[in-house]
């Protein structure tokens, strides 16, 4: 059976509407309707293939003869003139050296191409998966957008939950919010309690020399010691980088509190292993008693008193524990 070349081109328009037929000299003999739609001004038949297309791969192709030798392999093309839409192609030689048949498609550039050239379903062969690909791209972006919205809402909920949280995530101790809450509750109840402010000594050196991971290990270790040195219903909170507040409910006995502070400081002074190194730190503490000087009405004053005592302890040479005394503020100022 012999197929007339013209009949054959009619078939090609249907099956592969982005084809080009060239002769042995590289002159275009025919082009498919979709390809023509991309360059409606161009006089396709009779033009040179290389005047319209730039072949970027394979790089060794310099001539029409080279081009025909690429038979079967993937061609990377683009239009010479803007928009320089990228195309994929494959070439099959025509019988007895009459030239070649080249079929093309958009490849991944199809998304821009559909927009740039206002293409419709009719421009693609029904067997071409382009429409399905466009469908998928839209469906996926719609689904991704829904997921993104969900993630944003969850992120917002997470931040809100963290703001409402009472736990310090690094150490598992109570955080400043929880401490404020407990302090206010105790003051409102009118019960006696002691508030101890503990600050680590030499913690910054650990962070600076061994890094933040070591610092975190130290904080977690110290948190454990504090929980061990206190009773079940006492409050241990981490209120700042290396600052802790301990609240002893119903305990205002100075001798007992001194004992707790002493045990705590000496246990903190034990070297803390970190990998094959060890971290040496200490701690200073200041305590204020709720019943010591008139009725306490707000937690801020008590915290301030504990703070003053703490700095007095630090100034006295660290690794010490002081109770707040009126007049300490003056000593601090001098």
């Amino acid at each position, binding site marked *: 059976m012999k197929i007339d070349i013209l009949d054959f081109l009619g078939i090609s328009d249907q099956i592969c509407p982005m084809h080009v037929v060239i002769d042995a000299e590289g002159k275009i003999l025919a082009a498919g309707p979709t390809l023509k739609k991309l360059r409606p001004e161009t006089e396709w038949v009779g033009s040179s293939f290389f005047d319209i297309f730039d072949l970027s791969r394979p790089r060794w192709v310099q001539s029409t003869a080279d081009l025909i030798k690429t038979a079967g392999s993937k061609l990377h093309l683009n239009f010479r003139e803007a928009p320089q839409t990228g195309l994929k192609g494959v070439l099959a030689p025509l019988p007895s050296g009459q030239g070649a048949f080249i079929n093309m498609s958009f490849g991944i550039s199809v998304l821009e191409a559909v927009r740039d050239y206002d293409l419709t379903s009719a421009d693609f062969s029904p067997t071409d998966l382009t429409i399905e690909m466009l469908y998928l791209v839209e*469906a996926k972006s719609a689904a991704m957008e829904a997921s993104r919205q969900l993630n944003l809402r969850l992120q917002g909920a997470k931040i809100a939950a963290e703001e409402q949280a009472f736990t310090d995530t690094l150490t598992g101790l109570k955080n400043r919010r929880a401490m404020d809450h407990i302090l206010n509750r105790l003051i409102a109840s009118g019960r006696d309690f002691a508030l101890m402010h503990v600050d680590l000594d030499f913690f910054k050196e650990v962070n600076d020399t061994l890094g933040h991971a070591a610092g975190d290990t130290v904080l977690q270790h110290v948190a454990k010691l504090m929980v061990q040195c206190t009773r079940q219903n006492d409050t241990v909170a981490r209120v700042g980088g290396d600052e802790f507040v301990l609240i002893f409910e119903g305990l205002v006995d100075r001798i007992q509190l001194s004992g707790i502070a002493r045990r705590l400081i000496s246990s903190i002074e034990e070297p803390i292993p970190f990998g094959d190194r060890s971290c040496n730190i200490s701690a200073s503490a200041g305590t204020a008693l709720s019943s010591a000087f008139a009725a306490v009405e707000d937690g801020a004053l008590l915290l301030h008193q504990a703070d003053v005592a703490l700095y007095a302890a630090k100034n006295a040479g660290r690794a010490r524990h002081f109770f707040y005394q009126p007049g300490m503020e003056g000593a601090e100022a001098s």
Partner: protein
Amino acid sequence: MHGLINRAFQGFVSTTFGVESWLTIMDRAELGFSEFEAMLTYTDEQSMIMLRSAEEVLNRPLPEMLEDMGTFLVSNPQVEALRRLLRFGGVNYVEFLHSLDDLPDRARLAVADLNLPGLELIEQAPGQFELHCQPGLPGYANVLMGVLRAMADDYGDLVFLDHSGTHDGAEVIAITLVETEFSEGRAFDLGAHSL
């Protein structure tokens, strides 16, 4: 039932009857939340409680509301994405009808855990079709009625639809194409979607 389906109903009620109505429905349903998330899954029971509550609060029969929701999903500009995805099914209404056989697979391509019941289009004579909806999603045929009606408008064709009972457990929708290119329809541009 997939969150997308619940969320679609939420969108329909909030837009058509107002957000207040939606919140009343959810209060009454006592599910412990007031909004459905499109990308989460809910139990069929949760969805049914919500739908029953909607029926009571809005005082309208559920089948009617579901059909209106189908129309809303295609014709409301807020949910343009779904209309576009359906239009990818074919260049004219008949091609679109034939593409419905692939709808469950297409839905799964987009959202892997979205399972829609199977659909089968049977062409009985030129312009005469029956769409068989397999069971699995209560009210699905009602929603489809609304979708089919709105898509006909979208393509500019005039159709007559009738929910004509069940056949072998599948709900049957009879579709009669009265006139093609009855009206302008809406434009569909393949590349209109901004990426």
